């Protein structure tokens, strides 16, 4: 027979948190990506010497050919919304003052894509396939992904 205690005032618990936080490096390719973004406000991809595809964000190795990629190139600033979602709540489940559109954008002839907020358009007006332009923070760039946003092209 199993005991199931359904009297919640009997239940004992303890709370705690994780205690540690994290500082990540971006990697060999990621460093290149973010330094370029910070310095010249460009988005950088890497080119596989074997299959010739370009990947964004830049990666150190081709995931299919498994060879090193040492050639980098800008992928331009105009892309297409491949998918999006509209956020109404924060991570803590509190309502956002304004809904946030998160858009996954791909670039012509480039594998991969980038996820960032899409601004300057009503959520109801966002469509898969719409063209957007990258806007990279130049006032106070952090050299991280939060510097990136999209606006309708």
């Amino acid at each position: 027979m199993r005991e199931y205690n359904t009297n919640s005032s009997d239940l004992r618990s303890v709370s705690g948190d994780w205690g540690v936080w994290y500082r990540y490096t971006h990697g060999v390719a990621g460093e290149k990506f973010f330094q370029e973004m910070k310095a010249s406000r460009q988005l950088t991809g890497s080119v596989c010497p074997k299959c010739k595809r370009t990947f964004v964000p830049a990666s150190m190795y081709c995931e299919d050919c498994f060879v090193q990629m040492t050639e980098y190139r800008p992928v331009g600033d105009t892309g297409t919304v491949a998918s999006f979602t509209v956020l109404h709540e924060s991570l803590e489940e509190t309502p956002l003052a304004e809904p946030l559109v998160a858009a996954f954008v791909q670039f012509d002839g480039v594998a991969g894509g980038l996820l960032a907020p899409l601004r300057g358009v009503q959520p109801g007006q966002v469509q898969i396939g719409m063209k957007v332009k990258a806007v990279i923070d130049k006032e106070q760039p952090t050299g991280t992904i939060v510097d990136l946003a999209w606006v309708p092209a």
Partner: protein
Amino acid sequence: MSKVAVLGAGMTKFMRRSLETGRELCWEAADAALQDAGLTIADIDCVVIVTAPDAFDGVHMKGEYLLDGAGAKGKPMVRPYVGGGSGVFGPIAAWYHIASGRYRTCLVVGEERMSPTQPHPQGAFNAIYDQFTERPLGVNLLWIFSLEMMRYMQVYGIPLETIAQVAVKNKRNAKDHPACQLGAELTVEQVIESEVMSYPVRRLMVSPVTDGAAAMVLANEEFARKKGGKHVWVEGVGWALDTSYWTNRDLCYPEYVEKAARAAYKMAGITKPREEIHVAEPYDPFAYKELHHLEGLMLADKGQAPKLLEQGYWDRDTTNGIPASPSGGLLGVGNPIAAAGLMKAAEIYYQLSGKAGARQVQRNVKRGLAQAWGDLMQVGTVIVMGV
């Protein structure tokens, strides 16, 4: 069941903090192992990724995160987990993937980045303690090691100076390891006078926080023979865990390492390990652990490994003993948890195939073992290889 050979190994430098992400470290190690084996990723049928707590890299679902760097895109991949024991469990898992007959080849990649954890990776370990009966006491990872070390020393009457010699030996051995960034010539005095962390553990008895990756390629007999050349074979594997109630067992002896070793020796047909094992890589995150593990591996009687150390029995250039940690181990080369165990397994492969360079042991070696340990300090994983 198919026989399984080790075709190649590779690794990155072991660094205090790498620029590379975990995935990039995986690729660097995997590429090196494939090159050593003379193969490409297309030759790999399945991948085993070993990496210890997600809490170090700070990336959830770490196996999935690392997989494309580990060559696992589109391939069967599994991430077996036994904490610090994982590094040696990787090749064990590769063994059963292949021995089952299902896969011809397997790439094992072991990775760890400890540098992202702030303020210090040690803090991530707090969660291994019970949240009710232990954490409220203000616990600290070092306590488990220092409590175990104290018990071991007390029960067998082991002097601190002898334990310090393990650090001296391994840090010196590590000077010849290409992955090592900080090999050193230390004296016993320097070790026993280094800062008290948690008595009796002193700073120079603790392996350093490290980022790194290692990789190994294994294959079935048919594939290996087709490649040609002389091979290193997996002859025995074993693994065992003890209770998580670590305060309920006597810390002076690792029973679970003995159980794992017995299983590996039985599979390898070894009845006299002290004669039949010619080189060993016991897990050495702390200086005393190497001795503790050598006894668990039954390569020395209980409490006797330190005496043998004093006699030079475990030295790299011994001719009538068993060289232990010729690589320089975790103490010397570094401790990127899962990658460290795999580095030790790779060392046995290098020693048995004569590829260990300046670290090549003096005595003739035909059989060796690597052992790792971890989880809540209660897992033993053992692999025996031979030529």
